[in-house]
């Protein structure tokens, strides 16, 4: 699968309160959550983001709470994938469990600029910055987690295979 869109850049340690502030957690409706996605980090984000766009961040993206509202909000706002130098662990597992593609690459995280057009081959993990022509390779994804992506998330995985 090829994912393609404009890059929205964020810094290190973007926490789940920045991705979706707790004041909106009285719902888990994706259509409501997407209106507030990333708003404490970039108030213009919910209006500017378009289907396919890509979040590019530094280290420890998604740290903080375990709220699945964070990947739900990102997915619902049309973001096709997140590229970061590293991910906080609960955000990491939530993304695979829910089928939000995420990629770890120090080089891509450092080199891609705001607004660049980026293309990711989700199967091979090859990241291309089409604006600068630079190419990066994301860290490989463990086998079990590839299975989760192929099955379409953890619940589908359980349904298909009769257990985890």
């Amino acid at each position, binding site marked *: 699968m090829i994912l393609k869109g404009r890059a929205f850049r964020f810094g290190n340690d973007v*926490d789940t*309160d920045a991705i979706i502030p707790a004041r909106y*957690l009285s719902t888990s409706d994706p259509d409501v959550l997407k209106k507030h996605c990333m708003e404490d980090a970039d108030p213009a984000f919910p209006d500017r983001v378009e289907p396919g766009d890509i979040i590019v961040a530094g280290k420890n993206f998604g740290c*903080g*709470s375990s709220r699945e509202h964070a990947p739900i909000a990102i997915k619902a706002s049309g973001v096709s994938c997140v590229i970061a130098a590293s991910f*906080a662990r609960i955000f990491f597992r939530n993304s695979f469990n829910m089928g939000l593609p995420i990629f770890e690459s120090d080089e891509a995280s450092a080199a891609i600029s705001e607004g660049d057009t980026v293309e990711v081959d989700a199967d091979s993990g090859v990241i291309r910055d089409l604006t600068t022509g630079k190419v990066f390779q994301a860290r490989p994804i*463990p086998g079990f987690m590839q299975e989760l992506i192929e099955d379409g998330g*953890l619940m589908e995985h*359980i349904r298909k295979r009769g257990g985890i």
Partner: protein
Amino acid sequence: MGRTIAEKILAAHTQTKSFQPGDIIKVDVDVALANDITAPIAIRAVRQSGVEKIAHADKVVFVLDHFTPNKDIASANQCRYVRDFALQQEIEKFFDGGEAGVEHALLPEKGLVLPGDLIIGADSHTCTYGALGAFATGVGSTDLAAAMMTGQAWIKVPPTMKFIFEGELLPWVGGKDLILYLIGKIGVDGALYRVMEIEGPAVSALELSDRLSMSNMAIEAGAKAGIIAADGKTEAYVKPRAKRPYTVYASDKDARYESVTVFDCAGIEPQVAFPHLPENAKGISEAGDVKIDQVVIGSCTNGRIEDLRIAARILKGKKVSKGLRCLILPATPEVYSRALGEGLIDIFLQAGSIIGPPTCGPCLGGHMGILAKGERALATTNRNFVGRMGDPASEVYLSGPAVAAASAVTGKISAPQEVMS
């Protein structure tokens, strides 16, 4: 090759014969926890899967503690959704209304989490129970849905980092100060994907409440779990509460650690974490002149009876600074009741504090103490991210109960010694 506590607990809960850090294994869980914010997504996933009756209701614990007492119609609907499911599925460990308290204070108190357990919770501070010698880790709602249906979870086996606290604590220093100091040293991703094993003479000397504060904040260093081996004090705490057998594990002498770090408590004064990350910890003597508008004493980090006793020692016979709101939220009904019985609530009221119900409330900017633009709070909670307690342009500072209470009296971030002669 010896094994760590974490590896022993994982081995006791998996069919996989041998595993290495980095391997993904399937584990049987003893407890699967969720709250009023995370349970609805898990319940929806269960309902969508078409399962009528979940197979593992006996492992499930639901606590309605975040936006309760219901802060608005939407949160009331959320709680009701969880309540209906809990009744329908006959989930016995369901805590609602006057039985509810902040989950990570409530579960140890009720004896629902025990040494040697493998616990998952759809709440990042599930790592709190590591202080009882358990493997406890935060997961997402979908993981919780899977656990309700299968009794299992997938875990990437983490390497373990060891942290040793030597020496004796300085006056007014507690578990919260040690963990803030540690996070200040290694950073908010300093233990990413790792287990933190915390030990040493200073930790052995700590009571359970202080140890729970320490394990609580392991996630603030990115860790998967923060484990303190169970000892005599742990057993004295859990034995009268436990309703099922438990196992005490210790790490082998030749266990493999990714790193071993030693801290000397002689150099650790009461800590304050500055906005907007827990890693911005400073000793109180370096805090400078920081005026504050609100103090919050409560939460799963420091809302236990021991914390309230410390706050009461400082607030007794004094007044909260004019113009400052001092909110005190006992973490559970039992803590509240004991605080009443010991006369602490009266001390707080006389000092001009506001007493709240056992709820997460302001800790996550839910309700009951939200900050206006530009306001500053000093809280005994665990996170000081942008907008955590209200307006995105407000600030949260973190400390233990002693510094929080002293600062409520002076109106600025202050050492306890400033108000206690």
